[in-house]
C-alpha cells in the first residue's frame, strides 16, 4: 500500500522532493502477491500462471508482466516475461534461424518479416506448433532470463534512486531484497504511476498559488 507522507500536506512546486519521500518498500509488489513458479515447471505452467496473475493497484486490476522462477530456499533463479514466452514459442528450424540472421547482414525488418510470412505459408504444420505436446512440455529453465546482480535493489532505497537504476540499466522491474531475503518486485508501471500522480499534485498546488 502506498503511504502518503507528511510532506504532502504542505503544497510543493518541486517534483523531486516529493518522489524522494518514497522508498522502494512503499511501491513494491510483495512476493506473496507475485506470479511465481518452481523450477522444473513447464512453459505451459508459466503461461497459465502469468495469465491468472493480476495485482490490484489503486482500485484497478493490472496483469503481471513477469513470472519468477523460484529455486529451493526461496531464491529467484530467473524470470520469464511475456516477450520471452513468445520468443520461446516461436517455431524454429534451420530456415527460420537463417531468416532471423538476415538482420545481421543489413536486410530490412520489412524484408525479414516477409520471408518469415512466406515460410509460414509454405509450412502449414507450424500452425499446430503451439498446441504440440512437445511445445507444451518445454522446461522454463531453457528459456528464462537468469538474474544478474544489477537487478536487485534494497527495500529501503529511495524511489528516486530506484527509478535512476531502471533507466540506466534499461529494466522494466527490479527485484527487492531485505537483507538477504527476496521480498518483492518493483515494477516500472508503479514507479511511473507514482511519478505521474506526484506531477499532478504539484500542478494542482501551482494553480492554488
Amino acid at each position, binding site marked *: 500500500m502506498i503511504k502518503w507522507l507528511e510532506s504532502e500536506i504542505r503544497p510543493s512546486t518541486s517534483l523531486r522532493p516529493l518522489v524522494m519521500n518514497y522508498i522502494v518498500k512503499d511501491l513494491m509488489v510483495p512476493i506473496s502477491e507475485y506470479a511465481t513458479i518452481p523450477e522444473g515447471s513447464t512453459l505451459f505452467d508459466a503461461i497459465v500462471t502469468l495469465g491468472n496473475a493480476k495485482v490490484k493497484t489503486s482500485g484497478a486490476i493490472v496483469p503481471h508482466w513477469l513470472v519468477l522462477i523460484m529455486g529451493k530456499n526461496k531464491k529467484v533463479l530467473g524470470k520469464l516475461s511475456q516477450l520471452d514466452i513468445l520468443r520461446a514459442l516461436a517455431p524454429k528450424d534451420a530456415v527460420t534461424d537463417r531468416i532471423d540472421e538476415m538482420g545481421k547482414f543489413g536486410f530490412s525488418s520489412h524484408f525479414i518479416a*516477409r520471408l518469415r510470412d512466406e515460410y509460414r505459408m509454405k509450412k502449414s504444420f507450424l500452425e499446430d506448433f503451439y498446441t504440440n505436446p512437445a511445445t507444451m512440455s518445454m522446461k522454463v529453465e531453457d528459456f528464462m532470463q537468469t538474474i544478474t546482480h544489477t537487478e536487485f535493489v534494497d527495500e529501503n532505497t529511495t524511489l528516486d534512486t530506484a527509478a535512476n537504476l531502471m533507466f540506466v540499466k534499461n529494466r522494466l522491474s527490479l527485484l527487492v531484497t531485505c537483507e538477504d531475503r527476496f521480498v518483492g518486485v518493483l515494477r516500472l508501471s508503479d514507479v511511473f504511476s507514482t511519478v505521474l500522480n506526484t506531477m499532478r499534485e504539484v500542478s494542482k498546488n501551482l494553480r492554488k498559488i
Partner: protein
Amino acid sequence: MKEIERLYDRIIQRVNIDLRELEFEVNPYVQELIPLVQMVKFYAFYGISPHLPPHFQFCNSNLAGSYFLGRCKVTDSLLYKSDIRGDELKKKGDLFRYLDYDMQVGDDEEIEIRNSLLIKTLVHNYSHDPETLEKFFITDTISMNYANIHGSPSSGCFLGAFATVDLTTMRNCVIGNFSYIQASEISHINIESGTIWIRNPGRFNFFYRHNPEKINDYIYVTPGAAPQGLFVDFIEDRKEAFQRIFDSVHIEQPVPVPNNASLDRFAVTKGQTHIGENVLVAQRAFLQNSWLGQGANAQENCFIINSRLEGCNVTAHGAKICEADLGRNVFVGFNSFLRGRPDARLSIGDDTIVMPHTIIDSKEPLEIPPGRLVWGMIRDRADLETNSIAIDDFSAIDSSASIGDLFFEGSGAQFISAFKDRIRHILQANGAFFNGSEQKGHAQKNQHISFNTIQPYPEGMKKGLFPTILIEP
C-alpha cells in the same frame, strides 16, 4: 629459428586479442600449420618494370615463396607463398570518388603489412577505404590458404581458407572458409563458411550461403590440421608443375604469345594452349590444353584445363575451369569452381555472370544459355533451375526477391549494372581493349618484368627471417 618462432606466437596472440569479443581463437587453425622449416626453404622474389618501379621495405619478416610488385612495406610478418600485387595502387594526384566527393590522393599508395600471417594469399587492387587513401593496410591479420584480400584494408581479422574479401574495409572480423564478402565496411562480425554477401547500402543486398554439408566435400578445415577437400586435392595434384618453374632460372616461353599479350614467367602452360591477342595470364595461373580468345584473362591461382574461352572473359583470382566452353564476355568470379567432364562438358553462353565462389560440378552435360546470372552450387540441371536467372529478369527486381537460398533486396538493375561496370573495368585494366596505341593494360605493361630473388638467414637465431631490405628505383 628462435626469432621466427617468437614472431609466429606474437602474431597469433595479437589476432586472438583483436577477436576476443567474437570469442574466436586462431590457435587451433594456424598453430604448426606450416612447419617452420618450410619457411626457410623458399626464396622471395619481386618484379621490376618501367611501369612499376620497385619500392619495397622488408623488416623482421619471413617472405618464403612470396612475390611482390609495386609499392609495399612488410614489417614483423610471415608471408608464405603469397602474392602481394601492387600494380593497381592509386597514384599521387589520382582522384578517388566517394559519395559526392572527389578526393585527391596525396601520395603514391602503399600496401603496408604489419604483424600478420598470410598463407598462400593474394593481395591485390587498391584500398577502397576513403579514410586511408594512401595506405592499403593489413595489420594483425591471419589469412589461410588461397584467401584473397582484394582492395580490402584489414585490421585484427582472420580469413579462412579460400575466403575472399573484396572492396571492403574489415576490422575485427572472422571470415569463414570459402566466403565471399563485398560490403564496403564490416566490423566485429563472425561470418560462417560458404557465405556470399554483396551489399551496397541503400542500393542492393545479395546473400547466399552454401549448404554446409555439401561445401565440406570441397573445403573442410578441422582444428589442428591443414585444409582438406576437393579444392585442396585439385591444387595439390598440379603442384609439381609449379615446382619446376620456380626452381628454374630461365624458362623458355612454352607457347607463342602475341606481342600485345602477356604470359607471366611464373605461370604454368601445358599441352596445346592458345594465347590470343590482349590476353593476360598472371603468375601462378595454370593453363592446360586451353584456348584463350582475344582479351581473355587468367588471374592469379586460376586453373583453366581442357577449356575454350572465346574472348573478353574474366577468370578472376582463384577461379578454376575444367572441360568447359565459355562464350564471349563470360565473367567467372573469384574462387569459382567450374568442372565439366570429358564426356559431359559444361557450356556457358555469352555475357553470363558466374558469381564469385560459385560451384558448378556436373556429371551430366550442362548448357547455360547466354545472359544468365549464376550462383551457388549446381550439380545437375535441377540445381541450375534454382541457381540461375536471366540477367534481364534479375534486373527487373525493384524491391526484393528470394530465389531458392538466394535472398536479394534492392534494385536488381543497379546490382547488374554495378557488376557489368566492374567487369568492363577489369577488362580495361587488364588491357583487353588495347588497340595498338591506346588503352594499354596489364597485358601490355607486364610483358617485360624482371625478377630478383631475396633469401632469408640460413642459420642462427634469425634463421628464416629476411634481413631488413630497402629497395628503391
